[in-house]
């Protein structure tokens, strides 16, 4: 009896147990055309935790977030969110999943034809039947959290870069999602807003019972707030650990990144042929207007 039933029950137990991670990335590979961007990525985001993904520019962090959000399809491997394989969802399934995700885009991506207020209210109006009075209170609350309640009437074109990013943050958390993804939340912020936003990410995560992924270059700020850190370099995970482990770590990648050293295993250069070889070559002709 037991032998027959246990295997059939196992998947049910595995997906419904609250202890299973919210996001599980397994052996993920991704390539744009033929250029491989991510190879063999394994990342686990446990429920209720804040996880950072760090790595040099161009290593594939934004790409990873887009794969989690289902905007790109993996070449192989899979991303599971709340037990569902993202790239196997149909359109409706994907949209249902995305309703419970919030994403802060690297460049804000505010709707330029709407005011700050309408940007934050957008999802509430699209996905809920809340009365306008309630939406009003919610929007001002979210804007207050990022310190921009006074700016609710402005249009995105009237905001500075850092302000736009904070509005985008307020918009990302508008519907209290279960998974919040922040793409570079600290870029372009002054030290004061930076630590306030850092605190905010942590508090929001704990207050909402959500899980968060923070993509960032800012080692010191993120070490203060995150539970676990992945280091990505050239599309691979090169180191991982809790904030304490990372601080103590002597691994060369981590050391170089944490201390911002120019020399080390993390390359600053985009992959290229040897410098000397490139210098000897004739420059490619500039493109003419008639070509």
């Amino acid at each position, binding site marked *: 009896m037991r032998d027959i039933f246990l295997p059939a029950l196992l998947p049910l137990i595995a997906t419904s147990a609250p202890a299973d991670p919210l996001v599980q990335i397994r052996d993920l590979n991704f390539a744009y055309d033929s250029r491989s961007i991510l190879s063999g990525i394994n990342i686990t985001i446990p429920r209720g935790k804040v996880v950072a993904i760090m790595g040099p520019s161009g290593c594939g962090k934004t790409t990873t977030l887009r794969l989690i959000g289902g905007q790109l399809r993996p070449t192989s491997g899979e991303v599971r969110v709340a037990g569902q394989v993202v790239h196997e969802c149909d359109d409706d399934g994907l*949209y249902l999943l995305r*309703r419970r995700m919030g994403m802060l*885009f690297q460049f804000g*991506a505010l*709707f*330029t*034809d709407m005011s700050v207020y309408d940007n934050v209210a957008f999802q509430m109006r699209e996905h809920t039947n809340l009365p306008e009075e309630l939406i009003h209170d919610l929007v001002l609350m979210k804007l207050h959290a990022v310190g921009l309640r006074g700016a609710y009437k402005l249009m995105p074109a009237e905001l500075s870069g850092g302000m736009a990013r904070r509005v985008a943050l307020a918009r990302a958390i508008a519907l209290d999602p279960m998974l919040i993804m922040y793409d570079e939340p600290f870029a372009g912020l002054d030290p004061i807003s930076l630590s306030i936003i850092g605190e905010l990410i942590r508090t929001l995560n704990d207050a909402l019972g959500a899980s968060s992924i923070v993509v960032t270059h800012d080692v010191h700020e993120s070490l203060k707030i995150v539970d676990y850190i992945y280091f990505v370099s050239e599309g691979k995970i090169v180191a991982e650990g809790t904030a304490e482990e990372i601080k103590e770590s002597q691994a060369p990648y981590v050391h170089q990144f944490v201390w911002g050293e120019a020399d080390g295993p993390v390359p600053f250069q985009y992959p290229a042929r040897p410098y000397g070889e490139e210098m000897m070559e004739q420059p490619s002709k500039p493109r003419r207007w008639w070509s």
Partner: protein
Amino acid sequence: MSRMQQILRQIGHQVTERLWRLGFASRFLLMTVLYSGTALKRFHLTIREIYFTGVLSLIIILVSGMFVGMVLGLQGYDTLQRYGSSEALGVLVALSLVRELGPVVAALLFASRAGSAITAEIGLMKATEQLSAMEMMAVSPIARVVAPRFWAGVISMPMLAALFSAMGVLGGYLVGVKLIGVDEGAFWSQMQAAVDFRQDIMNGVIKSFVFGVLVSWIAVFEGYDADPTAEGVSRATTRTVVTSSLAILAADFVLTAFMFRGI
């Protein structure tokens, strides 16, 4: 021989690429229609776009209509008076406007005034990741951004064409009757007698509706399909104006051929 082959290959490539794009655009149109629920249920979204595409095109449409009508008055009188039938000026002005010039010229103006704006707007939204952001918020950009703009164009076009024709008739009247001195009673009564509601007016409305669908479809598709760069958006805008002008004129020929009754 190899040069010949090269040319043939290039032609083949061009043709398949165009066909592929046409198929893609048709699928896009189908999607837009299927996802039109939001645009029609929350009609204020469409009304807002009608303001941007239709209402803001009013000035250029009205002024152009007036001028075209005035020119028709001058040229028509010049020809008609040689045959001693200058009272038929009203008929000439009204028929040319309602059947041909109203729908066609208004659509051409609409393509360059509103179509290009729609393409540029959607293209820029794509380039600045606003469409991606919308997708990540589980809102379909086709339902929320594309469909309202499409329907706004389809709804505005016949009204703009009608206003164009009305202004044209007014222009013809001013020049013919007030300036040149054609008999006012003959001008209006002959016009009333000669213009048929079904054969002339309805056919004109059908034309402008078809042009509205064409222009709006091309404009939203080019915007959605634009390369997400400054250059890509500017190319897409140009393509909208060129493609929709050609499409309007070609469709006009086909429609006129079908509506033609001989004598």
